[in-house]
């Protein structure tokens, strides 16, 4: 059927354009030679292995993980009550609060990094790491609020009322009735936040210093100096990591419901 063929062609070419480059990167990282070429001359895992030995990569990976995990957790600690308040109550200034919390998405990251550097790190003596932490938390917060709100939206409020009538305190009702039911939403928010934070670059551009660099920034500076396939290998590994996380999330949570 003509239309089916055309349809396959369109989708196929687009997917090739979107995903082809990854395949290339994965293969380029397998190159046995010393330079980035494609197709690779010879297959070798040496560059993939080398990635783990570069010390700065290890440090920056640790920092990125720290920011992603704890930044997201903090964002959830701030965001869950906020999402609850916005969806259940009729609070004054609701629109303003929603706009404030959502604003970080609109501000270009590089400006954020620069602003925090200039006004928090330098004058107030915040450590760079702390500034990074706050920036990442603020960046993840809108996603956390949105996903949890969506999850809360699917729950009717009669559940809590029923719990209270059966003798629960308000907090008790929240812990016993709401939390268990938004579990997968929270988990989905966590994963989304994690990935967003981990892959974040512009914010961290100015907020780096000796020994304090997020992994993407580290990769960028490495790329400026060396042109060997280890960056390709690292990119491929990171891609796998992100994909694996999301894949697992989809399998166990039906992730797409909340985003």
């Amino acid at each position, binding site marked *: 059927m003509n239309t089916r063929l055309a349809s396959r062609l*369109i989708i196929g070419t687009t997917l090739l354009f979107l995903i082809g480059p990854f395949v290339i990167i994965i293969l380029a990282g397998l190159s046995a030679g010393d330079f980035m070429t494609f197709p690779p001359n010879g297959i070798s895992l040496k560059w993939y292995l080398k990635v783990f030995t570069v010390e700065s990569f290890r440090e920056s990976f640790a920092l990125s993980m720290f920011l992603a995990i704890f930044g997201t957790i903090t964002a959830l600690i701030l965001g869950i009550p906020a999402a609850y308040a916005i969806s259940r*109550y009729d609070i004054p200034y609701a629109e303003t609060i929603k706009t404030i919390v959502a604003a970080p998405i609109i501000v270009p990251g590089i400006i954020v990094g620069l602003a925090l550097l200039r006004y928090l790190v330098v004058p107030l003596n915040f450590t760079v790491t702390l500034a990074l932490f706050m920036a990442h938390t603020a960046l993840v*917060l809108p996603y956390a609020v949105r996903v949890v709100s969506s999850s809360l939206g699917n729950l009717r409020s009669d559940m809590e009322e029923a719990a209270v009538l059966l003798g629960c305190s308000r907090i008790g009702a929240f812990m016993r009735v709401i939390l268990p039911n938004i579990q997968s939403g929270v988990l989905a928010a966590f994963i989304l936040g994690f990935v967003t934070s981990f892959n974040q670059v512009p914010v961290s551009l100015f907020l780096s210093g000796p020994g304090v660099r997020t992994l993407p920034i580290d990769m960028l500076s490495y790329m400026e100096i060396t042109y060997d396939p280890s960056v390709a290998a690292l990119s491929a590994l990171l891609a796998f990591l992100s994909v694996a996380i999301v894949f697992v999330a989809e399998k166990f949570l039906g992730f797409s419901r909340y985003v």
Partner: protein
Amino acid sequence: MFQNNREGLALALPAAVFTALLFLLPVGILLSEAFKVDGSWSLQGYIDFASKPLNQTVFLRTLKLGALVSVVSAIIGYACAFCIVNLDGRHRGRVFGLVVLPLMISPVARTYAWIVILGRTGIVNDTIISLGLSKTPIRILFTETAVFIGLLQLFLPLMIISLVSAMENLPKDVIPAARVLGANWIQVFTKVILPLTKDGLVIGGTLVFTGSLTAYITPAILGGSKVLMLETLLYQRVNVANDFVSAGVIATVLIVMSFGANILLKRIAAARN
């Protein structure tokens, strides 16, 4: 049970205060730098900035690429969305997942691949030379074309997602109805699909346009200092010349353009009605 609004406010405030104090405030101060010269309010910073030809070039180039990426991604996006929406359930889920997948991967990784493909010894050049279309490798990297390609790959999924969502919400049978009434496929698109999915187009367009305007990594890696965009220019000005006024100006311009794009697109969508 939810009448105690004070309680609600108390729950929501920490998040809002956190963001306002530690995020928006510093950014606000930075933006205000653009309006100050020697401690007093003035637009001189803008005037100085705008008068330099380099800045003008960068500004126009950023706008141009942003618009181009938006338009091209809209065209490809509609084609893809239409095909995806007509697939059956299983395939649709898989294809959609593959489209969304790149969004989860670091932009550094996504952009880096293009170096391998577009470089002097990259795939494209290898093919061109072996096909005899040119004797020497063509320079694709560090040109506007390279940045365009990188940005397109980065943001196309956003447009596709937005359009698929819009097309899934088309009223049932509206397309076959138009066909039976005599419309050819172009007419079906312009008279039925486009008007009914224009909200999705606006959302997708805004995301793609503002994303392209405020991109850093892709222009940095694929354009370098030969093809400066507003954000790479900002970085350069601060790092090299400690020029915070320029930084403030660029920052304000970027934020204004993002908002402006959003409002403009919404107006266009409403006007077409």
